[in-house]
C-alpha cells in the first residue's frame, strides 16, 4: 500500500510536467489545428535558458534563494515566450493557409532546427542543472518519501494552471482566444485581431513549456539538447488523451500519463515505461474517439 502511494506521488509530480507541456499543445491545436511538434524542443530551450540564467546570476550556487529561483523561472518563461512568438511569426504564419500537412512538416522542420541548433550551441553532452533550491527529503503521512523539488513542481504547476484558467475564462484576451478557437473566420469578422491572438497563444504555450523545462531541471538535473523529443511526444499524447483542445483535458491527460508510467515502473518493468502511455491512449481512443473530455463534433454531410 505504501509502495502504491509512493508511486502515485512520483507519478503526480512527473505528470504535472507532462500537463504543463500538454497545455501548450492543446492551446495551439485548439486555435490552429496544428500539432506543434517543436513544442517539446521549446521545453528544452526553457531548461537551457534557465541553466544559463542561473549560471549568470549565481542563482545556482552562492546566491541560491527562493526569489532568485523565481527570477530564473520567470526569465526562462520570458525567453521561451519570445522564441515561441518568433517561431510562429517566421515559420508558421507563412504556411497558415496551406494544407495542414504542410504546416505539420514545417513544425517538424522547426523541431529539427531547434534540436540541431541546440546540439551546436549547447553541445551534445548533458549539462547538470544547478540546484536552484537546496534538495530536502520530506516524509509524508504513511511513510511516503517525497522531495521538496517534487512538491515545488506540483505547486508551481497548479499555480500556473489556475492562472491560465483565470486568464482564459475571465479576461477579454482569453475570451478572444476562445472565440478564435471556436471559429477563426467568424472571430475575425467580429473584429478580433486573430493574428495577435495567435501570437499570444504561442507566447503563453511556450512560457508554460519553459516552466516545465525549469521544473524538470529541478527534479532530473541532467539536461541535453534532445531531451524534448520523448516528453514532447508524450505530452502530445496526453493532450489527445484528455481531448485535444480542452484545457482541463490536457491536465488530466498529463496526470494519467505520469501516474501510469510510474505504476508500470513500480509494478511491471521500467523497460515498458515508454509503451504504457500509448497502450492507454489507444484503449481510450477506441472507447471515446474524441478523448476523455473532448467534444464529439457531429459530422456535417
Amino acid at each position, binding site marked *: 500500500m505504501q509502495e502504491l502511494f509512493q508511486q502515485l506521488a512520483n507519478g503526480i509530480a512527473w505528470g504535472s510536467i507532462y500537463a504543463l507541456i500538454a497545455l501548450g499543445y492543446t492551446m495551439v*491545436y485548439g486555435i490552429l*489545428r496544428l*500539432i506543434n511538434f517543436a513544442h517539446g524542443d521549446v521545453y528544452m530551450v526553457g531548461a537551457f535558458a534557465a541553466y544559463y540564467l542561473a549560471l549568470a546570476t549565481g542563482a545556482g550556487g552562492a546566491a541560491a534563494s527562493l526569489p532568485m529561483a523565481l527570477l530564473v523561472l520567470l526569465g526562462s518563461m520570458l525567453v521561451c515566450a519570445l522564441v515561441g512568438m518568433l517561431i510562429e511569426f517566421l*515559420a508558421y504564419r*507563412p*504556411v*497558415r*493557409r*496551406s*494544407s*495542414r*500537412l*504542410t*504546416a505539420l*512538416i*514545417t513544425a*517538424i*522542420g*522547426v*523541431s*529539427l*532546427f531547434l*534540436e*540541431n*541548433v541546440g*546540439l*551546436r550551441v549547447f553541445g551534445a553532452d548533458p549539462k547538470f542543472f544547478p540546484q536552484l533550491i537546496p534538495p530536502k527529503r520530506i516524509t509524508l503521512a504513511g511513510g511516503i518519501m517525497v522531495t521538496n523539488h517534487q512538491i515545488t513542481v506540483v505547486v508551481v504547476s497548479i499555480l500556473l494552471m489556475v492562472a491560465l484558467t483565470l486568464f482564459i475564462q475571465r479576461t477579454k484576451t482569453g475570451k478572444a482566444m476562445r472565440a478564435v478557437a471556436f471559429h*477563426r473566420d467568424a472571430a475575425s469578422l467580429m473584429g478580433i485581431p486573430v493574428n495577435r491572438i495567435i501570437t499570444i497563444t504561442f507566447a503563453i504555450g511556450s512560457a508554460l513549456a519553459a516552466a516545465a523545462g525549469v521544473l524538470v531541471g529541478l527534479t532530473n538535473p541532467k539536461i541535453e539538447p534532445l531531451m524534448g*523529443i520523448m516528453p514532447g*511526444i508524450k505530452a*502530445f*499524447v496526453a493532450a*489527445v488523451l484528455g481531448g*485535444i483542445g480542452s484545457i482541463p483535458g490536457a491536465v488530466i491527460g498529463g496526470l494519467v500519463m505520469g501516474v501510469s508510467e510510474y505504476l508500470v515502473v513500480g509494478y511491471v*518493468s521500467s*523497460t*515498458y515505461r*515508454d*509503451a504504457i*502511455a*500509448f*497502450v492507454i*491512449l*489507444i484503449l481510450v*481512443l*477506441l472507447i471515446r*474517439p*474524441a478523448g476523455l473530455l473532448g467534444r464529439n463534433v457531429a*459530422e456535417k*454531410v
Partner: protein
Amino acid sequence: MSPRKSSFARGLRWVAAALALSLGVDRLAVQWINPYFYRILVLCGLNVMLALSLNLVNGITGQFSIGHAGFMAVGAYASAAFTVYAVPQLFGVGPDASGLVIVGPLLLALLVGGLTSAAAGFLVGLPSMRLRGDYLAIVTLGFGEIIRVVILNIDAVGGARGFAGIPRRTDLAWVIAGALTTWVVLRNVLRSYHGRAFLAIREDEIAAEALGVPTTRYKVTAFVIAAFFAGVAGALFAHYTYLHTNSFTFMKSIEVIVMVVLGGMGSLLGSVLGATVLTALPEALRFASSERLIIYSLLLIVLMIARPQGILGKTEGKRGK
C-alpha cells in the same frame, strides 16, 4: 493469342527486364563505385520502398500515418528471426552460405517479413473505422512506439543489445528489385478500379461513401498494402546491416513522411525523388559536418513555405485549413 495470355507474356518480359536491370546495376555498382556510395544507393532504394508505400496511405488514400517505421521494424525482426531460427532447419542453409542457394530462403524471409507486417497493418488499420485525422495519426504513432518497446523486451531477438548473427544477404540487386516491385504494384493499383476508390476517399470520404465505396475496407486495405512493402523493406534492411530498434524510432517515421511530402503527396515519381534526395542530401552536406542538420531543417522549412505541394505534387494534398 488470347489477351490474357499476352498480358501474362508481357508480365514475364517485365520481370525478366527488372531482374536484368537490378543485377546489371548491382554488378556495375560493385565495379565502379566505392562501398560508401554503394551503401548510400542501398539505403536510397530502401527509402524509396518506404516512401512509396507510405504514399499509398498518406498521399493517395488521404489518411495520416506517422508510424511507418513500426511496420518496417515488424518486417525486419520477423524476417531476421525466420532466417536465424527457421532457415537452417528448413533448408539446411547456414549463415555462411552464399551464392544461388540463398535466393530461396531470402525470398521467403522477405515474404515472412512482409506478411507479418501486413497483419500488423490490418490491426492498425482497424481503428480507422472510428478515428479520423489527427486521432488516427496518433494511434499509428502509438503503434510504432509500442512495437519498438515490445521488440526491445524480447530476448530471442537480442532485445536492447541488437539482433546479432543475421547473415548479410541483401545487396543492391535485391533492393532495386524490391523498389521496382513496389513501384509496379502501386502503379497498377492506382490505375485500377481500386485506385479510384482510394483517391475518392482522399478527395471526399463522405461523397465516396455515398457513392457506394466501402471506405473502411479500402482504408484498411491501404494500411495492409503499405505495411507489407514497409515490412519487405525492413526485411531487406535486416539482412543488410546491424539490426537494432534504434533504427525504427519516431524520427524514422518522420523522415519517411518528409520524403513523401517533399516529393509530392500522391505522386509515385515524387516519392522516388523525395526519398532519393533526402537520403543523398545529408550525405552531400557532410562538408559542413556540424551544421548539416541545421541546413537540412532550414531547407525543409523554406521548401514548405515556398512550395508546399512538394516537388512533383500537382495539387495540395487536401483542402482544409
